[in-house]
């Protein structure tokens, strides 16, 4: 207590002298961090300059660090690449719930933060399924509902599976460093309960250049395996190493550390892993590899007992075998193709990789394999191309993949229909700035496409054909189609039409690394140049910072209401699984 008073006195003294303590000493986990009781995290204190070991002091609730935690932090006089000192203590756990005051001092200035360590109730859910529509904004959702269900006289002829859930909330997505997140720190908030920074996964982003030494926080995968011996599945249609799926296992400051991330998946004991990204599993000597070393991770996964599949047929065959309990599905060397190209247009890379499975089938097979494990499972499913297509302003492909996400949610709801033991959560990780303005009506006679944009009562309703059995409209190039526009963009040619000849590439690299409008679309009838409102270094549209929608159903969904921070998703999951109950620690 005396130390706390002293620390506060020093803080006030520092403030009086004009020093800004917050800039001078950084403490990880950050101020107001919420930490699951019993979960592991690294404590790091970054001092502003080189300090003496004897002057670097940390207390927790007034007690010296080594007394409070029973372990001594490592003092680093000069960090690698930084002329400053730090204290690091890895794999800290705090079992007792409550508020903790952490005070650090270098003998001159003082910084204090407060952590909340929380417990949970006992386990209520056997399984948790977390669906993430990467980059899915409200406009994606509304457009998906219109295209899949149809709408007349203002009333939808049906709804989305992700709408029909018992609970809903808005999530804030901001990160430690910015009001705008990327998929790394946003997914990391869901899988660790800690905020992080753009490009970072499972760590607080520190100041050293090494991307793999940052202070870590425990992932959901580690927790459920360690505390409850549960099975874990990760399913995506992007590369499995990409930020959202990687957040289930990874600790890195830099999301593009694909080679280490493959190793982290291997070491995590993940039971089902499916998606693209095979090129980083191959040793560099293999043509087609993108690894920078000669480790053959396909062989390593096989040796660890995984069934390895690369096509839809192999996936279904392996899943039908009741002995399959560990499954690695790699269906593309890079990102898989979206549903519009796979099922309808045969564009993208579909001709090279014609046997890619559908996300819905990947989810069904993951559920079948994970159900063979005795202690329940956690499954993350990402419809990742919603984001990959929204970046290049290709909203039709993004919306079709939103429908695909919804079909996958429907499959999961069907799986849990006969049992009330599975919490299903459906959300996005961030938004894109797109909005539904009306319709584009080719029947309006004008040489200028902008005159065909109908707003208010002139928008009426689009004339897409009814959805097929799988929920997709068989045609998108209809005469009265949705008018959806992005709010942030590089220079590009707006065509007011779906891109039937392959995914949209709005801008390309021009002189001096600046991006210029792709003149491939210049001669599309009616195309107009939209001069960008982003820096010329931006090749595509960007994420936006609006809230995302979270819907949920099943045991534990009752906490999903009102406005929540994105870290609360983790808390809802661990609460449903009882991972912070006294018996679980």
């Amino acid at each position, binding site marked *: 207590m005396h130390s706390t008073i002293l620390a506060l006195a020093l803080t006030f003294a520092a403030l009086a002298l004009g020093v800004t303590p917050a800039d001078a000493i950084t403490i990880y986990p950050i101020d107001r961090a919420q930490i699951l009781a019993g979960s592991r995290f690294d404590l790091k204190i970054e001092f502003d300059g080189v300090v003496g070991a004897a002057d670097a002091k940390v207390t927790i609730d007034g007690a010296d660090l080594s007394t409070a935690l029973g372990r001594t932090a490592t003092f680093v006089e000069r960090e690698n690449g930084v002329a400053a000192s730090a204290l690091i203590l890895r794999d800290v756990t705090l079992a007792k719930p409550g508020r903790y005051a952490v005070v650090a001092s270098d003998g001159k200035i003082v910084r204090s933060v407060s952590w909340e360590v929380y417990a949970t109730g006992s386990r209520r859910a056997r399984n948790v399924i977390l669906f993430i529509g990467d980059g899915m904004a409200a406009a994606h959702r509304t457009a998906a509902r219109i295209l899949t269900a149809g709408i007349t006289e203002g009333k939808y002829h049906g709804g989305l599976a992700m709408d029909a859930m018992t609970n809903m909330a808005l999530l804030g997505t901001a990160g430690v460093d910015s009001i705008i997140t990327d998929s790394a720190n946003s997914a990391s908030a869901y899988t660790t309960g800690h905020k992080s920074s753009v490009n970072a996964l499972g760590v607080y982003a520190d100041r050293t250049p090494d991307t793999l030494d940052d202070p870590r926080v425990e992932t959901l995968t580690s927790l459920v395996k360690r505390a409850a011996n549960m099975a874990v599945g990760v399913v995506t249609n992007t590369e499995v190493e990409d930020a959202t799926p990687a957040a289930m296992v990874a600790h890195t400051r830099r999301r593009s550390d694909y080679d280490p991330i493959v190793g982290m998946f291997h070491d995590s004991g993940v039971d089902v892993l499916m998606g693209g990204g095979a090129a980083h599993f191959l040793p560099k000597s293999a043509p087609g590899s993108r690894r920078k070393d000669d480790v053959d991770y396909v062989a390593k996964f096989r040796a660890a007992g995984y069934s390895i599949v690369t096509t839809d047929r192999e996936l279904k065959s392996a899943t039908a075998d009741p002995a399959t309990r560990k499954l690695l599905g790699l269906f593309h060397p890079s990102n898989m193709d979206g549903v519009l190209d796979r099922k309808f247009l045969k564009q993208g890379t579909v001709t090279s990789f014609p046997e890619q499975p559908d996300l819905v089938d990947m989810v069904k097979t993951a559920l079948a394999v994970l159900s063979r494990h005795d202690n329940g499972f956690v499954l993350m499913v990402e419809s990742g191309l919603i984001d990959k297509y929204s970046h290049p302003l290709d909203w039709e492909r993004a919306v079709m993949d939103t429908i695909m996400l919804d079909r996958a949610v429907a499959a999961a709801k069907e799986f849990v229909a006969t049992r009330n033991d599975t919490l299903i959560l459906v959300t996005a990780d961030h938004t894109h700035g797109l909005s539904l303005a009306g319709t584009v009506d080719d029947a309006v006679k004008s040489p200028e496409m902008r005159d065909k944009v109908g707003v208010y009562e002139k928008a009426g309703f689009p004339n897409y054909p009814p959805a097929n059995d799988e929920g997709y409209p068989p045609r998108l190039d209809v005469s009265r189609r949705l008018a959806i526009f992005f709010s942030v963009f590089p220079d590009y040619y707006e065509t007011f039409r779906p891109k039937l000849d392959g995914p949209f590439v709005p801008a390309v690299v021009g002189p001096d690394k600046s991006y210029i409008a792709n003149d491939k679309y210049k001669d599309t009838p009616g195309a107009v140049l939209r001069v960008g409102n982003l820096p010329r270094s931006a090749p*595509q549209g960007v994420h936006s910072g609006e809230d995302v929608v979270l819907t949920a159903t099943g045991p534990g969904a009752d906490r999903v209401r009102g406005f929540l921070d994105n870290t609360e998703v983790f808390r809802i999951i661990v609460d449903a699984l009882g991972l912070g109950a006294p018996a679980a620690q």
Partner: protein
Amino acid sequence: MIRPLRAAAGVLAAGLLALAAAAGGAERLRFADLYQASGVLGVKFSDLAAGLDGKPVVMRGFLAPPLKAEAAFFVLSQKPVSVCPFCQSDADWPMDIVVVYPGSRTDAYRSGSTPVEVSGVLQLGAKLDAATGFLSQIRLVDATVRPE
């Protein structure tokens, strides 16, 4: 006044050299001809590409500048390049890129959405770029570039 003229002469000379290389027996190699099999777990170079390993070839494509200032190479792709703003790593390049090491260092090679022809000696097989760590499987070295 002299400098631009010299630069123009240099570009012209490079173009003529490229034409000379093309005319001097360099085989034309298309992106579509690079592989005979492209599977999820690896690719197999075509007999044509394998036969041209170490020999001069001419390829058509779109040239992007290097991502890092210290890089001495460019990337030739089948389609104009547009990369993810957040994850500018090799993961975002198309799978079938060709890495181009120019014969003399220059920054004149930026094609945007205009295709170029690149003449150079074909090299197949994994190689890590010493300065950047960038992994390439197909390279054109000692290359010259000219607008198509």
